[in-house]
């Protein structure tokens, strides 16, 4: 066998490792989740009772699925006006200026801050503000967690929409200008419609990020295992539940936590695939 062939085989074998890892992940998560699903069946997903007391153990994931979705949607709603404005700032109004460069560097830095630092800052800076306004339980709760999540996903939402918005062909916009449209009218009737699917994909990917965020949410959401009744209630997300309860878990409880990890895995997988699919379809 010649050396070129060996090189090709090495490349192939190492690359297949990714597939092996991914398949192994699915296998281990499913395997670990089996006891919980065997005991509770589909009720695991639809029950809202999480009770780890010995003897009458009952695990239902609904409060955490709800907590995850509510915090992530709320974070998206808060992030939208901010990141959309920023992407217009960068991709339209101040395109290719020095100030845009500074702003975009700062937005990028936002993506570099570790989750735990966001959590710490939220715990000592955001929470006192919430307390002042009487929001949440001692400042903890869905709303506080969503606020920090919103800040964390802004860079992900902004970078893609900014890129797409700045790529809208100039002749389209110029045609509208020549008909007497103002800049706002051009943005509303030309730029945004042309960039729509890219912008949507950016927010879908940001949503996927928000769903899996762990540390900052864990430190601020208040950790109560019930379905939140309002956005100012405390709650728990799937990720924060795993972070909080993993330490003392074994047996059925561990299996329940792995099952929640599996749900989280599937959910983020679906959302990211949708986002990636839209992007692929565009190009």
């Amino acid at each position, binding site marked *: 066998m010649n050396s*070129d062939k060996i090189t090709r085989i090495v490349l192939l074998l190492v690359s297949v490792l990714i597939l092996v890892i991914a398949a192994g*992940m699915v296998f281990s998560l499913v395997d670990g989740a089996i006891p919980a699903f065997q005991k509770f069946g589909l009720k695991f997903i639809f029950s809202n009772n999480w009770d780890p007391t010995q003897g009458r153990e009952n695990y239902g994931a609904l409060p955490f699925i709800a907590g995850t979705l509510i915090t992530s949607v709320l974070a998206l709603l808060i992030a939208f006006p901010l990141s959309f404005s920023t992407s217009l700032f960068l991709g339209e109004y101040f395109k290719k200026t020095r100030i845009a460069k500074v702003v975009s560097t700062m937005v990028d830095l936002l993506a570099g801050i*570790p989750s*735990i*630092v966001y959590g710490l*800052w939220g715990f000592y800076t955001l929470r006192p503000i919430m307390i002042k306004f009487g929001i949440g339980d001692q400042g903890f709760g869905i709303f506080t967690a969503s606020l920090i999540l919103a800040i964390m996903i802004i860079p992900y939402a902004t970078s893609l929409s900014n890129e797409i918005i700045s790529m809208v062909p100039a002749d389209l916009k110029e045609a509208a200008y020549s008909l007497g449209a103002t*800049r706002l009218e051009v943005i509303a009737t030309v730029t945004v419609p042309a960039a729509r699917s890219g912008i949507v994909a950016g927010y879908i990917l940001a949503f996927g990020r928000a769903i899996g965020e762990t540390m900052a949410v864990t430190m601020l959401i208040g950790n109560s295992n019930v379905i939140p009744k309002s956005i100012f209630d405390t709650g728990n997300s799937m990720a924060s539940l795993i972070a909080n309860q993993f330490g003392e878990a074994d047996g059925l409880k561990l299996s329940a936590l792995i099952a929640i990890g599996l749900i989280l895995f599937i959910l983020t997988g679906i959302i990211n695939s949708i986002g990636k699919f839209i992007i692929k379809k565009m190009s």
Partner: protein
Amino acid sequence: MENKNILMQADHSRSRLMKEKAFLWIVVFFSVVTISPIILIIWRLIQKGIHQLSFSFLSKTTPDAFEAMTAVAAGERIPGGIVNGITGTLIMVALAAIIAIPTGLISGIYLYENPGKRLANLIRNVADILQGVPSIVLGLISYLWVVRYVTQGFSALAGSVALSIMMLPMIVRSTEETLKMIPITIKEAALALGVPYHKVILRVLIPTSFSGLSTGILLGISRIIGETAPLMLTALGSTAINWDITKPTSAIPLLVWEFYNNPYMVDMIWTSSLLLMIIVLSFNLMSKQIGTKRK
């Protein structure tokens, strides 16, 4: 009649211009709001964390809660430091990089060399999905694989495995994107000279795209340094310096998690976060620097 019509038109365009101006101000306002957290966070970290930064902070292990309490009560600086976290982060990140960088580079090269192949497309899509997997799930996986079966207990190795799975897809994708940018003629020239394939990779592909590859690698490292969630489930933490990768090990973000709501330790936690932030941002900026130089 005629006059009135013109007046109305003028009115209409004035309101359009007003809207135009108002919208610009809204955009600017929200953009300022968007970048304010980064300033507030860094300012707060410096303000709270700078006092504890000292030689002993970087060279001594974490004090126990009692030591910290007496020091705070006496109004002194908290004794000890976070060297156990620093060494732990160093070991785990280095080990994760050693696992992920070669694997990621090779897979990236494979994807570049086999565009359009069905297997390559599958690998690319799977890498994209892996990139979106929440880090805490990677912690669970490494717990199930390494903590359970390999080290039979929490360990630095388990932490590294979780971090390396996180880093791998980033390197794969950045490698492929970087390689796509080098002119194909360079590779063809080498092949035409009869250079063996592995030498084309090692002597031509990698050197010509070196700065791009290091950008991806540095960015990947900066992402995993601050990771906490996967380490909580795998490395657990330790109060002593530990060089044995089969034993529980601390890390800077783990210390922050452990002590963030302990009123006696919180000063030290601000300093730890400041240090973490400095390390992460310098990797981040380093990768940007190399990236812009290339252009």
